[in-house]
């Protein structure tokens, strides 16, 4: 019994700062709660109805899917290629590249956003021949590219880790049998990291919204004309700019429910 004491601090931390607040979010989502004026009262499903009737929330939800889709392309395919390239030729150079590719992971996101702002500065920036962030048709894609640096870094490293478990003997045998390198990669190497790819897909979907948040906040504030908005930034706007805590909480509940779907699918695929 006493041995369970080891679990208590962590368990308490999770209850107090994650799961308790999660339950509170659900409760608050049924209340009218304006942060500035105070007294909260039961509102039934009014917050949910207001959200579902809000065109801006609908736009943000659709664009959250676009963010996730865009980041899945840039941060699964490219890291897989990079990780396989590093795995094929291990050694000092591979180690240096791996450390270099991980750097975006440790760079301060606000500083990175400011660097991009400088490079993309319309007219005078080195890539400023087009107003990337000011044009609604390119702004979201630009934020996706900026955000993918971090994800590419993390995913390349996690895929490299997964590739260390690829059986060298099988690869050697295939090589002796005369299989081409491309064929070995497609048929032997990639299938071995299938589970990791699914995990990365899940993590990318979860973190796509969160990691784009800082870039949106620093670079576009969701604009121009809502074109870079996503649900995470929208919820922040509801809660901490309009001080509508009930509405923000209702939105959080909807987001968690929506996220549960890809996560559950991923978990089933990984198990099967």
């Amino acid at each position, binding site marked *: 019994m006493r041995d369970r004491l080891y679990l208590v601090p962590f368990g308490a931390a999770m209850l107090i700062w994650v799961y308790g607040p999660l339950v509170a979010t659900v409760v608050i989502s049924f209340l009218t709660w304006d942060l500035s004026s105070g007294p909260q009262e039961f509102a039934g499903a009014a917050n949910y109805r207001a959200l579902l009737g809000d065109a801006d929330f609908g736009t943000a939800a659709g664009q959250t899917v676009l963010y996730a889709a865009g980041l899945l392309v840039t941060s699964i395919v490219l890291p897989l290629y990079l990780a396989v390239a590093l795995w094929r030729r291990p050694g000092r150079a591979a180690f240096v590249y791996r450390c270099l590719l991980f750097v975006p992971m440790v760079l301060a996101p606000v500083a990175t956003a400011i660097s991009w702002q400088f490079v993309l500065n319309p007219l005078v920036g080195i890539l400023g021949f087009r107003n990337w962030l000011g044009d609604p048709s390119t702004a979201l894609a630009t934020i996706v590219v900026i955000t993918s640096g971090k994800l590419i870094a993390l995913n390349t490293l996690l895929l490299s880790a997964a590739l260390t478990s690829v059986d060298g003997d099988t690869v050697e045998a295939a090589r002796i049998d005369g299989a081409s390198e491309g064929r070995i990669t497609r048929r032997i190497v990639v299938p071995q990291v299938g589970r990791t790819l699914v995990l990365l897909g899940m993590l990318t979907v979860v973190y796509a919204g969160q990691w784009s948040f800082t870039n949106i906040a620093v670079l576009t504030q969701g604009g121009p004309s809502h074109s870079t908005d996503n649900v*995470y930034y929208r919820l922040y706007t509801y809660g901490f700019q309009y001080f509508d805590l009930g509405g923000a909480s209702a939105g959080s509940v909807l987001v968690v429910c929506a996220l549960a779907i890809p996560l559950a699918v991923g978990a089933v695929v990984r198990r099967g």
Partner: protein
Amino acid sequence: MGRRAAWHAALIAASVVLLGPVVLAVLASFKTPSSLFEANPLPVHPTLGNYTAAVARFPLGRLLVNTAVTSAGVMLAQLVVAVPAAYGVVRFSGRAGRLVLAAGSLSVVVPVQAYLVPQFLMVSELGWQNTFAGMIVPQLSGAGIALLLLHQHLRAIPPSLGEAAALDGASSLQTLWYVVLPLLRPTLVAVGILVFITTWNEYLWPLLSAPGLGTVQTGLALFGNTEGANPGPLLAAATLATLPVLAGYVVAARRVTNAFMHAGLH
């Protein structure tokens, strides 16, 4: 030869694309205002003018201290709860352990926005707004990843070591302290560095919980809003804000990447 060159070319290209804008910004921070947007990325007449301007107008020293204290605090707090939990889960495999491990794993995929409003209300109820306690303690919500990484490594330590210590009359706490922790030290350092860097780069929570104290990230964003036509000092401030973590990473790159490489998150 050709294949080898292609391999290097691909990896160098990836590194350039990922790091290019940051390198350009750092180089530009040494440029004079008139040459800031010239096509040549190298500062032809290097100057520290942007740095003196940044230090004069941007409270960098204070923000660095705030960020360092917060990052160290979160790192310690997360390790203090996650180390015993990882030990408890591995050593006393039971239902409670599995439940704690599941709770920790699930917390990794819950978006912070899902519990931000209640956390914010709790902090204001406790009177912790604009305090280090308010910035540090709620970030225990991120301890799940520390638990997962520590658990993966602890599992690899042979249980016979603990059993031998128990036969010698060591309590489980003594075993943790004298046998397990020394073996776990490289992992502790790596996980610690990882938590430190993550907290250093955190933007949203310091912005909400302690706008009056401020961190390097929130300060930079604010500085960015007030600087208009001449981004030189802003680029200098961004460079200075990134330098400490980058230096830490350069020193410990092998450990940080190895912590991930061997984490077996797959």
